[in-house]
């Protein structure tokens, strides 16, 4: 889509000019997103590539785990993004329930599949890592189980949002479900502290010094930031496409309504082109 067509959308009167709410206006969101998205995509791809190549080929092997530790550079950022993505989903859902921003609904519906993808990546790489380290593809410890529940919550949200004939109802139901599922996030975070798990406890915290060699920390940081940018770029792209889809549907319906006004019966022919 060309930037000029986006600029042509008029600012609504009385729309908030400051604060985060101004991005709830789809036109303003589209303009901001179309500027930010190429950068996010570029940063995401470059940082992820740097982090993964550094981690997979140049970072030192672990004294205990050997080269298998390199799975960490794929697995740990995916796990962080899986949780952070659910938090974003919950924030969008809260915004949708409190302020009824339609944009938040669209964003929530787009974040669901992306978050589920990252969770699936986390589970798959964790399984591949578990086989050489623990001798099993899967163990039923608290961390693995709670992430599996997160995966099911994502899948439930994806299915629920699309299960209603009226999309607005689906968004509302999905938002309530997403907020109910938030209780799982602290369980995932603290599962390694509350229970004796085979999964190792956190090595990196926001407050304390990381108990990890700095030569392994840098590639991990690169791939984590890269993953986050990729996640954000995908979510933005999905939301932009959803806004456009909505707009096209509205235009087609308006056209159909106009055609019905001029020629009785012509609307039926047009309506068949509108995707349900």
């Amino acid at each position: 889509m060309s930037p000029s067509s986006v600029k042509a959308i008029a600012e609504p009167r009385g729309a908030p000019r400051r604060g985060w709410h101004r991005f709830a206006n789809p036109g303003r969101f589209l303009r901001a997103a179309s500027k930010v998205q190429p950068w996010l995509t570029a940063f995401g791809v470059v940082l992820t590539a740097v982090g993964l190549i550094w981690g997979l080929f140049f970072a030192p092997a672990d004294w205990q785990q050997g080269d298998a530790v390199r799975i960490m550079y794929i697995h740990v950022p995916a796990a962080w993004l899986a949780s952070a993505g659910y938090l974003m989903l919950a924030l969008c859902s809260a915004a949708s329930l409190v302020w009824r921003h339609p944009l938040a609904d669209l964003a929530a519906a787009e974040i669901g599949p992306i978050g589920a993808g990252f969770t699936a990546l986390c589970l798959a790489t964790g399984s591949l890592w578990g086989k050489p380290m623990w001798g099993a593809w899967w163990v039923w410890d608290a961390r693995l189980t709670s992430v599996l529940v997160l995966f099911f919550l994502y899948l439930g949200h994806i299915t629920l949002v699309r299960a209603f004939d009226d999309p607005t109802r689906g968004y509302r139901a999905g938002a309530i479900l997403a907020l109910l599922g938030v209780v799982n996030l602290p369980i995932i975070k603290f599962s390694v502290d509350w229970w004796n798990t085979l999964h190792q406890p956190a090595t990196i915290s926001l407050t304390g010094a990381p108990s990890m060699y700095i030569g392994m920390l840098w590639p991990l940081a690169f791939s984590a930031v890269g993953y986050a940018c990729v996640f954000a770029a995908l979510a933005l792209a999905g939301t932009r496409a959803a806004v456009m889809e909505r707009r096209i549907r509205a235009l087609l319906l308006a056209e159909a309504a106009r055609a019905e006004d001029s020629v009785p019966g012509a609307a039926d022919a047009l309506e068949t082109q509108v995707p349900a």
Partner: protein
Amino acid sequence: MIALAMLARETQLSFRHGADTLAAVLFFLLTGALFPLALGPSPEMLARFAPGIVWVAALLAALLPLDRLFGADFEDGSLDQLLLSGLPASGVALVKAAAHWLVTGLPLLVAAGPEAIMLRMPSDLLATLLAGLLIGTLALSLLGTAGAAIVLGARRGGVLLPLLVLPLATPILIFGAGAVEAGAAGLSPQPHLLLLGAILALALPLCPIAAGAALRAACE
């Protein structure tokens, strides 16, 4: 007052459709009876698995009547009337949850004793199992009510409902079965039961609020 009248209406309706109410209990007993057939009737093995079997069967049986919890009222319009009754939507949901527990959770509790004995569970663990089930079924009724309200009006909501409720119900299953496991290992089941109580304390305000929001969305 309205809440009591509504609770009386719900239980009365359930008694008049007695077959629906009995179906959940029958399902519970039948599922439990399948395990000895599949695992073999060895008493030691059955005794080890009995708490888990009873818990899983109870969890699934409690979900069974949920898709009709709001369904009939939604279709014939009485749900709109209930929401206009002066009771807040979350109150309506709470009464529905209480009714669900009275007609499903309570019969399951009664049936759980014989079922556990048939599965050769040591009888000194029975009190722990029932205490866990008492708290657990209450929490399940609340959670299930929220799930039923959320899928109200969805295509194939009956299939969707377990997909949404079961992941959220896993902690109830873990601590409920864990309490009996701890008792069998000679440890105190109290921590597990207290954690179950914490889940119930969390579900008691949160689930009716969520269910109320979903009911209002469904009847807009």
